[in-house]
């Protein structure tokens, strides 16, 4: 049987990859994908802990995270489309009107 710590390490690594790509990537869609990656890393961690504690509470949490992530994706993609219509670009370096 695979020990719980393996899943936790995988979760932590995925979370860190998510943070890194959030900071490095310049395309808004890719940045959005890296947030989803972070959320899924959290889900993996929750499931691993739920298994460790022998409870379902952690797995139920995952369902809620998935539902909320879907709602967030709906709003997020709509905002991205609204931005693209006005600016014709999805590069974060060119979305820089708001400055002092």
């Amino acid at each position, binding site marked *: *049987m695979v020990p*719980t710590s393996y899943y*936790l390490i995988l*979760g932590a690594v995925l*979370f860190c990859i*998510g943070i890194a790509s*959030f900071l490095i990537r310049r395309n*808004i869609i890719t*940045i*959005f994908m890296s*947030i989803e990656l*972070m*959320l899924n*890393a*959290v889900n993996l*961690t*929750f499931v*691993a*802990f739920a298994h*460790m*504690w*022998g*409870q379902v*509470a*952690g797995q*139920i*949490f995952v369902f*809620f*995270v998935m539902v*909320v992530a879907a*709602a*967030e994706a709906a*709003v*997020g993609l709509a*905002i*991205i489309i*609204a*931005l693209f*219509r*006005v*600016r014709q670009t999805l590069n974060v370096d060119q*979305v820089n*009107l*708001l*400055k*002092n």
Partner: protein
Amino acid sequence: MSTNLLALLPELVLTITGVLVMVLEPVIPAGKSRKPLGWLAILGSLLSGLAAFYQLQIVNAQGTLTAFYSTIQIDPFSIFFHLLIAAVVLVTLLGSLDYFESPITHAGEYFALVLFGAVGMMFMTSSVELLMVFIGLEISSISTYILAGFRKGRATASESSIKYFLLGSFATAFFLYGVALIYGATGSTSIGPIAAGLAITRTPTMAILAVAMVLIGLGFKVSAAPFHVWTPDVYQGAPAPVVGLMSTAPKAAAFAVLLRFLFNGTPMLHGHWILLIEILAVASMCLGNLGALKQHDVKRLLAYSSIAHAGYLLVAFTGTHQNAVAGACFYTATYAAMNVGAFLVLSQLSGFSERIRSIEDFTGLALKRPGMSALLGFFLLSLIGIPFTGGFFGKFYVFSGALQNGHVWLGIVGLANSGVACFYYLRLLAAIYSRPTSDSVAYIPVRKVTAPAAVALAATALATLGLGILPNKLVHLVERATPTTTAAVAVQPTQQ
């Protein structure tokens, strides 16, 4: 009425009104004014405030209410925040009733989204289960993401919205990872069992990491430095009444979650998180105030000021449990009154198109709009913390709590920062009361202040003044508000 329904009464009222507004919005023909929907929303927020009052009577008579398997806890603490959020929403709605210059077809959604956001914020403050906190946080965040970009078609609006959305979701991921780790360390996501589980946990390091992650996540939401980078951009691009709302109500809710989580959930780790809170507080105060010094855009200036005020609020957390709750509650109330008021004045002056933006535009405003200038000046003086305004007593209360608990240097940093803050508030104030230049506000057409907006302005001004002159009433209320933890049962590990 069942306990479950009673515990959710303010949220239920807001949800039903919000859904009604959404349903009625397409029924009203295009081109017609959406004002009736605004009045409906105002009625809803009034009723939800009354519902919170009703809850207060019940709680005073019967003690704390718990509902939905102890995931919702209605105590004076949550009722205080329910009332505060309902009041902020009410004032914001009154102020934005005439905000839309031409009848925009989707204006009804604006009112509904404000109500839905308030539902999420109320859930955050009354929930003692981190799952419910998370859902409340997301309901409030998703509504405000949309509201931030409401002037769509304008490049700055969608930019503000996307920045808020990306960084907000990023912060949520941190919050969630913190919750996952605390679940791993204690076997529960409820505040009470977390406290009990921490006493017997075998992985204290993971618990500390978890608290740090939750702090990062909520630090983003309250725009505490170093997680504040989104604040100036988002506030600059968002409509002024929305900024008034989102710089106060969601922050109050996030601070309520922090108070519950840190003092009731993780008191065992007090020695660890107090250090993080101190770092966040000092960084927010210094970066907020120093950043504001070189701003020209008034909304950006107030954004930096709101970062600094998040720092003052975090100072309250260094007091004892009772002092921290009382100080933070009092400060959120005064901050809400004066900041919503300041942004209401801005929205009334510059309107939907926001032609008046920079400090230079405000030069000579007092000649043209003496009343509005006096109001804005009053709110700015309160933000500085001049005596006889709510801002003064709020700061006094927060810092005395920190000093009593031996955080002298934090008090000194805070007071030095208040001095620095004088410069930029007074720079704006001086501009308002100086001779107008050719391109300044004096040559821009006057927008008439309508009756609902006047009521909203008067309410915020009276609240700011009242909290400065007669703070005792609220102090008595907030000193009783310290939340207790419900009976907690630690989960025994059943590790394979």
